[in-house]
């Protein structure tokens, strides 16, 4: 238990650091800006209670907001992300498997499941984030393009990091 807390704490700090000091300065042709930090919420253990999940998502969002000067924006998107995560997991994962599969990582859940999971959640998050940021529907196609390309970039980073920390299934 304390090991899981420690791992997630380290993951939180590292992801926020990467997002704020590295990825914030990266954008491909002004159309693709990755929001990689949501990986933290994606990788929280299956057993996380709903309340804790929402609180963590809220804190993560606000931390990013503090650095991006947009109070509430990332927090709102992260809350939506947490909700979609709960729905998605309740649809696709059986409850009995929880003891053996503590975290929804690439190495545990397999490529196909993780890719769908990351893509769906990222699309929801980015769609909400970019439209809330622009706060109007005038540049509809342009922002939709930004959503799609940014999501691809983010998912790409997630898969890379998943493969980087890939471990064969170890059962104790």
């Amino acid at each position: 238990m304390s090991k899981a807390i420690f791992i997630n704490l380290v993951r939180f700090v590292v992801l926020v650091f990467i997002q704020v000091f590295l990825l914030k300065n990266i954008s491909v042709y002004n159309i693709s800006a990755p929001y990689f930090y949501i990986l933290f919420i994606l990788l929280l253990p299956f057993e996380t209670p709903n309340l804790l999940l929402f609180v963590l998502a809220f804190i993560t969002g606000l931390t990013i907001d503090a650095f991006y000067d947009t109070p509430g924006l990332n927090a709102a998107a992260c809350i939506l992300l947490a909700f979609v995560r709960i729905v998605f997991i309740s649809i696709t994962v059986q409850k009995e498997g929880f003891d053996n599969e503590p975290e929804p990582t690439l190495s545990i859940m397999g490529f196909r499941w993780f890719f769908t999971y990351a893509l769906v959640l990222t699309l929801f998050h980015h769609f909400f984030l970019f439209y809330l940021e622009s706060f109007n529907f005038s540049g509809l196609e342009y922002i939709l393009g930004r959503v799609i390309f940014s999501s691809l970039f983010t998912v790409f980073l997630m898969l890379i990091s998943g493969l980087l920390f890939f471990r064969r299934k170890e059962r104790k």
Partner: protein
Amino acid sequence: MRNLWIFVSKYNAFFLFLIFEVSALVIYIKYNSFQKATFINSSNQLTGNLYARINEFYGYLSLKKVNDSLARENAQLRNQLKSSFYIDTIKKHKVTDTVYKQQYEYIVARVINNSVNRSNNYLTLNKGSNDGVTKGMGVICSKGIVGKVVYVSAHFAVVQSLLHKDSQFSAMLARNKDIGYVEWGDDINPRKCVLKDVSNNAQPRIGEWVVTSGYSLFPEGIPIGKVSSLHIKGGGYSLNMEVAVSVDFSKLEYVDVVENKFAGEQSGLEAQQKKDE
């Protein structure tokens, strides 16, 4: 009552979602209407200091480029010194003998946080109210205008850059002084902005300089960019044109905050006139 409780606890995820989402949106919308009135931004102590620390490190990476641009600016300024002019007319003598009262003063500041690829961009500077920066001052750099100060703490200031949906600055065509205003275009491109409401009689050319008009926060004649395209739909009685911004916002390092010594007097006088009407 018991049924209601069972219902709520069965769908607890959805109700928690509603509660948190509403509170996040309230924060977001509240912040939107009171520009920077909240404390969650990059001029507070923790994030500001972290940014300053990281920026010190980044500074080393571009030392050479900064040195070059400073040397160039030095040379340019030296060219403007009185001693480097050959005085050949009496008129010039008169001009140099006149006693001026200084209207504009400049506070040099370093950009410690910057963004160009969002629909509303802000910069954070490492100078604050302790150094004389106040809300509403203009910010320029050696190549042109940057934006205006919207929020100040003791050691930091947040600048709403030209690349912001709400930014609007009075500007004119350098050649025949036709007045208009510049704002950022709709396509979120950090190299382009739009000059609007120029009178139909003006005959702008491609490549012509667009500069500040002196009606706003900036001294007259600070460059903004060059006219790059005339094919933008106008408002009927006025011309709109596209301007290629001369400042590369993604590479800003040092900027000057413009302090207009007469700003208080001017705005006081104008407020007086409004009150009398």
